Every structure is written in C-alpha cells, then in structure tokens.
C-alpha cells in the first residue's frame, strides 16, 4: 500500500517511478494500468486483456470498472459490441454516480446505462452500488457466466457522489444540497451486526487497524525521496 501512496505523492518509490500519479497498482498483480488522460480507451485495453484470458485458457476473467461519463465514449460501444461478438470473459462495471465533473446525468444520459446491454446482446444488470453484498453477488454471477463461456455482462452500479470531482472542487455547480447518504461500509457493518455475524467492537477493531495501516503507509511513503532526474528515464521510453 505504501508504494501506491508513494505513487500518488510523486515519489521515486511509486510503482510508476513518479511518472504518473494515476491509481494503478503494480502491473505484476494483473491490474491493467491506466495511463491515458482520455476516457474510454481503457475499455478497449481491458477488452484485449479479456482476449488474452480467453487465449490462455486459464479461466481468468477481466473486470473493467468505469464511470457513467465514460460510458458515452465511442470506445464503450466498440468494446462491448466486440466483447459480446467474441464471447470474451469480461465484466463491465459502470459506477454511475450521477455526475461527470460538473454535469448532472440529466445532461448526458437519456436512459439507464444497463439498458444498453440489449443492443449488444449481453445481460445488463442494475444493482445498488452502495450495497456491498448485492454488488458482490452481481459481479460473481457475471464472472461465473464469463468463465463458463457465456461472454460479457454489463453491470450498472448505482451510487452517489459525496463530494466534488477532485479534492479542491467544492461542487458549487450543484444547486441541490448534497444529502447525507449511507456509506457502503457503514451499511454493511450495521447489517452484519443485525444478523449477529459481527459485533460493534469487532468492526471498530477492524477500522482502527486499517486506519493505523494507512497512516503508517502514508508516513512511510512521505519519508521517501521525490522522483528526480534518475526517474526521468530518457532511455526508458522503449523496451
């Protein structure tokens, strides 16, 4: 985790040697790197990763997460159409938070995204994106279908945007009040307690532990040197 934070801080120890602050993990962990500033091209790249999964016949499935704004890029259409045609093992998870930077969904989405799946001949599922268990169930079903050769699934995970698009964005363009909404983790926690599967102090211990881990990782990342000339990598553009 500390290396991921180092990456966000532009440190030499980041996975990308300070060259890109995107939150993509180590490529070795089979996470498709996201480097382009444009939207939607990663849909095509993820679809190609699914083609590699199919070719390698190891039962791997690619999960591609993107936003409701990105769903309007032509790459969405091209990729889903092609993935369905070739029955590629991929799950497209669109996190619809109702906003694309300053624009509300009413300005760019005339119909639910899940409905588009019909045009590509693949299942489309709408799920409460704040319900961890519902999302897990929907994705698991799609992964199983993909692994069995049933091709891709489009999941529209409905959620909300609590703050601005970036840290310093006060979202002054939102004229309706941002209503307090249930945090997915709080929702899951209270459900676990209701069902007697956990007790409040257990969850608090988990939370405290994670907070401490994150704080330690941030501290460790901060203490490392910033990326500098060595990381510029003038001879590292090509393999």
């Amino acid at each position, binding site marked *: 985790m500390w290396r991921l934070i180092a990456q966000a801080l532009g440190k030499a120890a*980041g*996975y*990308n*040697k300070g*060259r*890109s602050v995107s939150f*993509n993990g*180590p*490529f*070795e962990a*089979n996470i*498709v*790197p996201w*480097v*382009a*500033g*444009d939207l*939607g*091209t*990663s*849909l*095509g*790249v*993820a*679809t*190609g*990763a*699914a*083609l*590699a*999964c199919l*070719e*390698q016949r190891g039962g791997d499935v690619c999960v591609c997460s993107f936003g409701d704004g990105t769903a309007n890029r*032509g*790459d969405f*259409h*091209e*990729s889903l*159409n*092609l993935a369905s*045609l*070739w029955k590629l093992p991929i799950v497209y998870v669109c996190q619809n938070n109702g906003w694309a930077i300053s624009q509300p969904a009413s300005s760019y989405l005339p119909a639910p995204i899940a409905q588009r799946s019909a045009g590509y001949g693949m299942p489309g599922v709408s799920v409460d994106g704040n319900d961890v268990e519902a999302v897990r169930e929907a994705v698991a079903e799609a992964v199983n279908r993909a692994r069995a050769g049933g091709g891709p699934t489009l999941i529209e995970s409905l959620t909300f945007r609590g703050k601005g698009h970036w840290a310093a964005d006060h979202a002054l363009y939102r004229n309706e009040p941002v209503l307090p909404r249930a945090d997915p983790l709080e929702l899951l926690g209270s459900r676990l307690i209701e069902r007697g599967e956990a007790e409040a102090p257990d969850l608090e211990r988990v939370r405290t532990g994670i907070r401490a881990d994150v704080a330690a990782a941030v501290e460790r990342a901060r203490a490392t040197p910033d990326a500098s000339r060595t990381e510029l*990598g003038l001879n*590292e*553009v*090509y*393999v």
Partner: protein
Amino acid sequence: MSVQVGASTARPTVRLTHKEAIILAIAEEMRRDERVLYVGQDVGIFGGAMQGTMGLFEEFGARRVRETPISESAMVGIAIGAALFGRRPIVEISFGEFLPAAMNQLVNQAPNLHYMTGGSARVPVVIRTRVGDGPYGGHPQDYSAWFTHVPGLKVVMPATPADAKGLMVSAIRDDNPVLVLEPMSLSNARREEVPDGEHLVPIGSGAVVRPGRDVTVVAIGSMVPVALRAARSLESEEIDAEVLDLRSLAPWDTALVLASVDRTRRLVIVHEAWVSGGVGAEIAATVAESIPQRLLAPVLRVGALAIPVPSGKLRPLALPGASRVVDAIRSVVRPAEAPAG
C-alpha cells in the same frame, strides 16, 4: 514461389511482391510463435483489403486470424490489452486514412504504457496499414508524420519487398508498438528478390540504395523508386546523386543521413506526404543543427502539394513525381542554371 540463388550472395532468395513479402513475414512469424495473432477487417475468407492477408485465414483459422467489426479504436485497444497480457498481436487498419479513428489508443495508450508504468508493462503490438496513392486510387491521405512525433512509437515504411519482409519480422519481434506503413503504390509492384528463411532488417536503419557524390537524396516509401529514376536521368547531366532509403521514420537513421550529407554537402528530401510538419522537416532541422557549416546549398523538400490529396486526373498533379525531384536536385547542385521561380 521459385527458389533462386541471389546474384550477390549465396543465400537462396524468392521472388515476391511487396505485399507477398509482408504476408510471408507474418505467416512465418505465426508459425514460429503461437502468441502472434492477426486482427483486422475483411481478413477472413476475403483475404484482406487489397488481398493483403491472402492465405493467412486458411492456414491459421478464425481463432488466430480474427475478423472485427468496423471499430478501429477497439481494434487497437484490444491489441494493446492482449499484448499487455502475453500475446503479440498484429492489428491491421485497412488504410492509413482510418488511423485517426484509433488515435487515442495510438498516441495516448500504446506509446506511453511502458514508460508510465515505470517499465513494468510492455506493448508488443504491430499496427499494419497502407498509405498513399495506389492501384485502386482509394484512401490516399498519408498521415504518417503524426505518429513520428510521439515518443514510444516506432514507425517504419519499407520500399522494397526484401525490406518489407525484414521490417515486418523485426516489428513482430519488437517489444514496443510498431506502426508498419505499406506504400500502396508499391504493394503490387514487380517481384524482387527476398532472402528466403529468417530475414530481419533492424528498425532505425536506413540504406544507401544508390551511392553518389554530388547530392544526398533521402527518400521514403513510394518515393524511393521515384528518386532513383530522377537520379538515373541526371547521369547524362553529370550529376551523381546518392539516394538513401530512410526505411524507418521513427527512430530514423540520423548517423547514415549525416554521414552522407557530410560527404555530398547537399540534401534533398522526398516523401509522398505533405511537406509541412513532415518527416522531411525533421531531417532538414537535424542536418541544419548538426552540420550547418557543411551545407553548400539550402536543403530542399519535395512532397505532396498542400491540399487534401484529390482523386482522378488531379492526383498526379498533387503528388511528387520524378520531374519535381529532378528540378530540386538540379537547383541544389547547379543553382545558377536552375530556372527562376
């Protein structure tokens, strides 16, 4: 294909057109490496645009020769994704005019991934396409220079069947994204000797195709035979032109060009694409920066006129031909005799 013994070496050769040489290179690499797959439109039973994939589908089947919808961005995108996870895809964009439809993948993704992941990702993708004027007259716009601007992409444009094979094999084995541009006017040109068996031409190396003393003519793709014609026609005027085939547009053979110009002290650059912002501008600038004191005459560029390349009878008026190259060479070698204006 008849196997013959080449004249200059003992190495067996086959006689192939440019297009046949590219198909042979792809087929040999697909036999050699099962990770190589071919992705494109009309590459199935039809045999590819301009019959450019003839025989591949029959030999390798629908799993390794994959026909796609008309979706250039997704085609290049899936090639990048499959390459990141261990495959070595060749993606065919039928014509260079369609490259802009995949521009994001070509300039924002493919060239950046290796560097931006701190070296952990590799994108061994070949993008194959056809550019310029050709036998059927369609899709003549040549945007090749755009792709030489971006660090991380390699761009090659072979002008002979032997180089077409050698550069395609090198492109397939390269761990970087490589754009292979096939000049359409040469696709079905006459058969020439191509080394049989393994044959690689290093990416980034140009070639002296005609040695000469008086002027260096750097030619690219379809303009290599045109420059050679121009050079031959000037023999009678006792002008001895050296013709270089650049072969690789990015990276290009700076050392070869500088050494040649250092000797001849004059430079003309010829490409079918437009002059403005073109590959010739980069070469001229590099020579001007490196050995300005060696130049005895201004560097001249010959390329398409600054209009969208038209069709029909207008086309030859817009594209560079041997007479324009001859004029350019004359004016740098014998400026006093060149016609005014």
